[in-house]
C-alpha cells in the first residue's frame, strides 16, 4: 500500500475549529498577552472579599442600562410626545413594559451598588496611596450616576416625574450665588417644560455618556493597574498568611456568577413589580400628595428641608446646601487626610467620619420618608 494514502498524524487536523479561530485572532491582536496579564493578576481572598464584587455589580447594572436604554431609544420621542411614547412602550409594544421596568429598576440598583461599592472602598481604606485617583474618579462616576438618574426620571413626563423633578431642582437652585442661574440653564427656563425634557434627554443619552465613559475607562484601568486593595486587618498579616486567587479564570467566573444573581434580582423586580406610569403631567394641577425626589436624593432633600425650617428663608437652604457641599468636599479629600498605611489617629478619624456620613444618609433618608406622612 502506498504510504502516501495512509493517514498521517496531522497536528492541524486534531485541533478544534475554535482553537484555529482563536490562534488566527491571537496572531493579529495578541490575545495571549492580555490573557497572560489577566492570569498573572490575583485577587486577595479573605473574609471581606464579598465587598470586592460591588464594583463589578455596578458595572453590570451600567451595561444593563446601556442595553435597555438603547432599546427604549428606539421608541422614545422627547418633546411634546414624550408621555405618549412612554405610554406606548408601557401599554402597547410587546415587552416594552419589561424593558422600561428593567431600565428603571436597574437604575436604582446601580445607584445602590455604587453606594455600597463606595462605602466598602472607604471602610477598607482602598483610597490610600497609590489609589487616590481611583477614589476621585469613582466619586465623579457616582456624581454622574446620580445625574443619570435625575435626568432620566423626568423623561416619561408623568405627574410624578414632573413634580419630583420640580422639587429635585430645588436642591441645586439653593446653591448660593450661582444656584438659580445654573438651574435655569438646565431647566431651559424658570419652569419645568418640554424644553426641559429636550435638555434632560440630550444630557441623559449624549452628554453624560460622553463624560462618563472615559472616566469609567480610567477608573477600570486604575483597578487593573493597582489591583484590589487589602483591608487594614489583612495588611497587618504577614505575607505568608495572606491568600489570593487568580483573577482569571477564578475570580472572573465568580464575578460572572454574581452578575447572574444580580440579573435575576433585576428580573424578579422588573417582572413582579413593573414600573408604573402615572397620568400625564399637568403643570396647572396641584402636586400629588407627598411628592418627593427618588430615594438617593432623599437625604439631601431632607437636610435642605430641615435647615429651611430651622432658618426660615433663603438663608436656611443656602446654609443646608453649603454644609452638604462641604461634607462632599471633605469626603472627596479623605485620601489626602488619611495617608498613613498603618492604623493611627487620622485613620480612626476617617473611619468615624465614614460612620457619621453613612448614618447621616440613612437617618435623613428615613426622616425624609417619615416627614412625608
Amino acid at each position: 500500500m502506498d504510504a502516501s494514502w495512509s493517514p498521517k498524524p496531522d497536528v492541524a487536523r486534531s485541533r478544534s475549529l475554535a482553537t484555529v479561530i482563536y490562534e488566527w485572532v491571537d496572531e493579529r491582536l495578541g490575545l495571549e498577552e492580555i490573557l497572560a496579564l489577566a492570569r498573572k493578576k490575583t485577587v486577595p481572598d479573605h473574609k471581606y472579599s464579598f465587598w470586592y464584587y460591588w464594583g463589578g455589580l455596578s458595572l453590570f447594572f451600567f451595561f444593563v442600562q446601556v442595553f435597555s436604554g438603547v432599546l427604549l431609544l428606539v421608541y422614545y420621542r422627547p418633546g411634546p410626545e414624550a408621555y405618549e411614547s412612554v405610554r406606548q412602550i408601557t401599554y402597547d409594544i410587546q415587552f416594552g413594559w419589561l424593558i422600561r421596568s428593567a431600565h428603571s429598576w436597574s437604575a436604582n440598583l446601580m445607584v445602590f451598588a455604587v453606594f455600597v461599592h463606595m462605602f466598602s472602598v472607604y471602610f477598607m481604606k482602598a483610597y490610600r496611596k497609590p489609589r487616590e485617583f481611583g477614589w476621585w474618579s469613582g466619586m465623579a462616576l457616582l456624581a454622574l450616576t446620580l445625574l443619570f438618574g435625575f435626568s432620566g426620571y423626568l423623561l416619561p413626563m408623568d405627574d410624578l416625574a414632573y413634580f419630583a423633578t420640580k422639587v429635585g431642582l430645588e436642591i441645586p437652585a439653593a446653591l448660593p450665588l450661582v444656584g438659580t442661574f445654573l438651574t435655569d440653564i438646565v431647566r431651559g427656563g424658570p419652569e419645568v417644560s418640554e424644553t426641559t425634557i429636550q435638555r434632560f434627554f440630550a444630557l441623559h443619552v449624549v452628554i453624560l455618556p460622553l463624560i462618563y465613559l472615559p472616566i469609567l475607562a480610567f477608573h477600570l484601568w486604575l483597578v487593573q493597574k493597582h489591583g484590589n486593595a487589602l483591608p487594614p486587618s489583612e495588611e497587618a498579616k504577614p505575607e505568608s498568611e495572606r491568600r489570593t486567587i487568580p483573577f482569571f479564570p477564578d475570580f472572573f467566573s465568580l464575578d460572572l456568577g454574581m452578575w447572574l444573581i444580580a440579573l435575576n434580582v433585576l428580573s424578579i423586580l422588573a417582572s413582579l413589580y413593573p414600573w408604573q406610569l402615572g397620568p400625564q403631567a399637568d403643570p396647572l394641577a396641584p402636586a400629588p400628595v407627598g411628592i418627593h425626589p427618588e430615594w438617593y436624593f432623599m437625604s439631601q432633600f431632607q437636610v435642605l428641608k430641615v435647615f429651611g425650617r430651622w432658618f426660615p428663608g433663603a438663608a436656611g437652604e443656602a446654609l443646608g446646601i453649603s454644609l452638604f457641599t462641604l461634607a462632599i468636599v471633605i469626603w472627596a479629600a479623605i485620601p489626602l487626610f488619611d495617608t498613613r498605611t498603618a492604623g493611627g489617629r487620622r485613620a480612626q478619624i476617617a473611619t468615624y467620619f465614614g460612620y457619621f456620613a453613612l448614618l447621616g444618609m440613612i437617618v435623613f433618608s428615613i426622616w425624609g420618608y417619615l416627614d412625608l406622612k
Partner: protein
Amino acid sequence: MNYPFWDVPLIGSGWVIGIIAIIHVMVSHFAVGGGFYLPMAEAKALREGREDWLRALRDHARFFIILTGVFGAMSGVGIWFAIGLAHPESTSTLIHNFVFGWAIEWVFFIVELTAAAVYYYGWDKLPRRTHLIVGWIYAFCAWMSLVIINGILTFMLTPGASWLGAAGTGQEAAYFWQAFFNPTYFPSLVLRTLVCISMAGVYALITASRIDPLAEPQLKDELIRWSAKWLLPSFILVPFCFFWYLASVPESQRALLKLGISTIGQGTFTQVTRAATVVVMTSATILAFVYFSAWRNSRHFNLGRALCVLFLAFAATASAEHSREMLRKPFVIGEHMYSNGIRKQEVERFNREGYLTNSMWLKTDAPPVSLRRVAFGQPVEPETAANLARGELMFRGQCLACHTVNGYRPIARLLQGRDRQAIMAFLKTLHENKPDSPYRSYMPPLVGTADEIEALADYLDAILNHNVKRRSDHLAQADRATF
C-alpha cells in the same frame, strides 16, 4: 354557601395556601429527588470504596430527613388545613372524587417516612446491601406519592371531558381514572420529576458547600461537581416538557399567558405572564450560576453561594407554582367550579333564586362588623344594616377568595374613585359576563338577584366612600341602631 368564610386580612386566604404550598413544593420535590440522590451516591461511594463520601452522605442524609420528614410533612398537613378553610367547596369536590387516591398516597407516604427513618438510623447498623435497598424503597415510594398527587393537582386545571360530562350527576367518582389521567397529567409528571432531580442537586450543594476545602479539598471538589450535574437534565428537558404541558392546556387558559406580553395593565390580568418571565429567567440562568460558582470554583463554593442557588430555585419554583395556579383562572376546578367556589352549573339558579337565599351565615339583625370602622357612631336604619349585611355576605362569598379590602388585590384601590353608580355599572359588567368582557377570562361571573347585587354595591360604596346613607334619605335619623 355551605361553609363559613375565612377572612384573612391583608394577604388574603389564597396567599396563606400559597406560602405554605411554595415551602412544601420546595421541600417535597427535594424529598423525591433526594430519594434518588442518596442511594445513587451511596452506591457510587461503595463501588469506589470512598469512606469520605459515605461520611459526607450520612451528614446529607441527616439534613435530608430533618428537612423532608419534619418541614415536608408539616407543610403538607398545613396545606390541608389551609385549603379546607380557604376553599371548602373545591376541597370537598376533590375529596369526594379522589378519596381512594389520597388513601393510596398515604400508604406510600407512611412507607416513605418509615424507609427514611430506617435508612438514616440504620446507616452503620444494616448490611450495606440492605441499607441500599431501603434507600431505593424510599426513592420509589417518594416518587409514587408524586405520581398520585400529580393526578389530583392536574385534575384541577384540566379535569377532562369525561369527568366534566358527569359533573353534577353524582356519578363523578365513577370517572376516577379519566379524571386522574387527565390531559396535563403526563407532561406535568415528567416536569415535576425533572424538577425533583434538580432539587436533589440544589440541596446537595448546600451540604457540600459546608465541607472544609482546606481539610478535604478532593472530597469537596468531587461532591460539588457530582451534585451540580443533577441540575443538567432539567435544564435541557424542561423547555420541551413546558411546551408539551402548554399544548395540553385549553386555549382559553393559554391565552392568559399572553395577556401580559404587550401591557403591564394593572394587577392580576398580567400576573401569569410576569411570573412566567421570572420562571424563564431563573431557570435559564441557574445552571450558568452553578457552572461559574460551583463547577469552576468548587473550593470557593461556600454556604452563601449555595444559598444563592437555593434562592434561584425558590424564585423559579414559587413563580412556576403561582403561574400554574393563575392559569386556572377564573376556575379553581377547570370549567367546573369558579375560583369563588360557585359551580358553573349553579350560576343560572343563583341568578334566579338568589345567592343568599339558602345561606345559613346571613345575620341581618346585626350590622356587619367590617363596616363599624367606616360608619362609627352614625345612626343607621335596621333595614339599611340588614341590606349592608347582605352586601357583605355577597362580598365574602364571591370576592373574598381573591380580594381583600385593603391588602392583596385590594378592592379599596381597584375600585378607587368610583361612586355608587360607577360601582353598580362595574358589577353589572361582571354579572352579565358577556363574551367580550375584559374581566371574563380572569373573573367569575357575579351571581345573584338584582336586589343582592344592589346590596353588594351599597356595601362597596360604604367601604370605599364611607357612604351608608345615600340610597334612602330617611336613613339618617337619630335614636336608631348605630354602628
